[in-house]
């Protein structure tokens, strides 16, 4: 029975990775949910928008590194982030002008928008591969750990180590800041209020003189910024691979739907629900259990409920359960 070591192991393998992954999912799901709320369709191109933003950050990092500029202990990608956000916003606004606006004027059905976003997904995926190729890219530099397992052991004298990667800490902090700014914007500013009004009731918003094109433009800009930040943080924390972002669509959509599509608070909650269920169900609990039970009961197997290859099955099952029992999501979302 060694409660302290068990807690540390739990924090090291479940809580910290879950927090970081949850923040990444929450940022992605916020983008999905905003588009759904304001533009009223499920954007399949969102994963590849994240990939595009991350690509720009990588290019920026390389350029800064070649100039000899670095960001001290933090990854250089953070310095490149503002520029990649601007680049991503430019691409998204061009896409909206060239592609989506036509269907908005026509008042096309949401499912047509969905198919159109499939086309945009293909193009963006092609562009990303065209720019940076299909290989893995690691672009995280600066100090690797905020606290390494060895330092923690030396500090506390415990047997179990606790490591916090810089990218994990950064992800959580960035997510908190971004979410705070976003909610301030939505709740306090005039533009944010008009966005919410437009999402709630389009006709009423139009009657009160809100310019719909402006609302749509601002929404796309926010979504592009969120996607770039989420994509860059995910790439920093894991590894950048153009293909993984397409696969991220499933957990991100699950987060947004579980929280309630169109509801920003729900998207954040959904992100953490999905992340923690994936991590806890696919984590091998052997170590934690071994600390908690008397030594003769120590398990010989991994005590893993599902192999990590089935993490999609976890987000999917939660999605189905929520949809069956609470179709509008945990927080009330829209159901058009």
């Amino acid at each position, binding site marked *: 029975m060694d409660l302290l070591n068990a807690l540390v192991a739990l924090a090291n393998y479940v809580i910290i990775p879950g927090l970081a992954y949850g923040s990444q999912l929450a940022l992605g799901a916020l983008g999905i949910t905003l588009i759904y709320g304001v533009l009223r*369709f*499920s954007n399949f191109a969102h994963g590849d928008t994240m990939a595009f933003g991350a690509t720009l950050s990588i290019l920026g990092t390389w350029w800064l590194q070649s100039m000899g500029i670095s960001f001290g202990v933090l990854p250089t990608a953070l310095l490149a982030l503002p520029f990649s956000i601007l680049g991503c916003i430019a691409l998204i606004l061009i896409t909206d002008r060239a*592609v989506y606006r*036509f269907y908005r004027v026509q008042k096309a059905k*949401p*499912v*047509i928008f*969905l*198919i*159109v976003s*499939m*086309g*945009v*997904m*293909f*193009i*963006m*995926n*092609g*562009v990303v*591969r*065209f720019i940076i*190729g*299909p290989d893995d890219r690691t672009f995280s530099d600066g100090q690797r750990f905020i606290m390494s397992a060895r330092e923690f052991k030396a500090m506390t004298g415990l047997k179990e180590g606790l490591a916090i990667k810089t990218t994990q800490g950064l992800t959580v902090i960035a997510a908190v800041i971004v979410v705070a700014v976003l909610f301030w914007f939505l709740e306090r500013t005039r533009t944010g209020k008009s966005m919410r009004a437009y999402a709630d009731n389009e006709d009423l918003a139009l009657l009160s003189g809100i310019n719909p094109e402006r609302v749509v433009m601002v929404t796309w800009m926010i979504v592009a910024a969120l996607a770039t930040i989420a994509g860059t943080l995910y790439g920093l924390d894991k590894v950048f691979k153009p*293909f993984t972002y*397409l*696969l991220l*669509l*499933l957990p991100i*959509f*699950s987060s947004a*739907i579980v929280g309630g*599509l169109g509801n920003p608070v729900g998207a954040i909650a959904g992100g953490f629900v999905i992340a923690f269920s994936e991590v806890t169900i696919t984590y091998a609990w052997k170590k934690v259990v071994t600390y908690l039970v008397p030594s003769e009961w120590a398990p010989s197997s991994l005590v893993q*409920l599902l*192999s990590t*290859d*089935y993490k*999609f*099955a976890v*987000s*999917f099952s939660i*999605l*189905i359960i929520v*949809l*069956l029992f609470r*179709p509008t999501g945990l927080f009330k979302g829209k*159901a*058009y």
Partner: protein
Amino acid sequence: MAQYRNIFLFAAMALLILLTGFLQSWNSALLILNMGLISAIMSLGVNLQWGFAGLFNVGVMGFVALGGLATVLISMPPVTEAWSAGGLRTLLGLVIGVASLWLTSLAIARLPSGKAKILGIIAGLIVGFFAFRFVFDGGVSAIEAVNPASTGYLGGLGLPILLAWPAGGLLAAGVAWIIGKTALGLRSDYLAIATLGIAEIILAIMKNEDWLARGVKNVIGLPRPVPFEVDLQNNPDFVATASDLGMNAVTASSIYVKLCYAGLFTVVLLLLLWMAQNALRSPWGRMMRAIRDNETSAEAMGKDVTKRHLQIFVLGSAICGIAGAMMTTLDGQLTPAGYQPLRYTFLIWVMVIVGGSGNNFGAVLGGFVIWFFWVQVEPIGGFLMQAITSGMEDGSPLKQHLISSVAHMRLFTMGLILLLVLRFSPKGLIPEK
């Protein structure tokens, strides 16, 4: 007039394939033809769901992969050693798993709500899960220990591989029924996400459950419904006929085999097309389109919308399963890692939209056209890039990058084709009548 237009479009497609034969090689022309036939069948299946009923299925890849799984389960010889080592135990484990899920769902449906219900559900899930894992894991490790380098799985039934085609359809239909039962009552976007998820899960199972079909170790050397090239080359009659035609025996044998496949595939395509056409014209097809165009009024007329949706979802998925089984037969091997959503789900969607959703002939044409471009974009793009970069000096990094990135032109081109068709000709090449 429209009749002539369609004939012209199909003739143009045939001409493109013939041109490939004359300009590149007959082998690549026949490869495009064979995969075009399979793509046309997949596209028919998706068109049934989307064009007839407006169901948004983005899990095509999963059903195609299930068809591939069926070829292994039907045609490979059974591994008797593995069956005696752990076959029954594994099956028993699966039975326990399904039974505990069934009991839990009974508890959800029957027990009066309250603490007893919640406890019953939790206990059912936990006890069921551990019993399942205990029985199942033992069986699986016994099976996978049997000669892992070449088998390590249960094998199949050892039946002729042509039987795998309808079996693939049945397998896909069964899974589609389960998904449809849960997800079809929901909104269309939710169905999209649900099918996207189920396709990933099917793939995850096929990659990880080695006892089933060797996972990522792949099953190679599937039996074939047509003769092997080597046998033909050793057959003096065949060699004599080939030299009479002025061909060398190696080329002739490979073309002969591909023609055999093309014949088989054409028969299946025509059969399915005939069935789909009859379905479209029948009262059932009219009802489907009525439901698609206005669910509320169809429901008011007494049509059971959810049930009809389930029916057509299962049928369309079954067709994708058949096509998947045919594709794996053509490849001669099952490689689960090769299934990518962009290629096996979204590309099929491009085929349906470009061909003309709601029109079976459109879907078939779309299958051929898009597959042709999917294959030929690379040589065309390579040619273009050579032309663009010809002014640059050799060995410059930009030139190298541009030439090497030709491989990624396909996705871009497909997206562009989809967007252009949606914008300027949203009804596709052959519009619905």
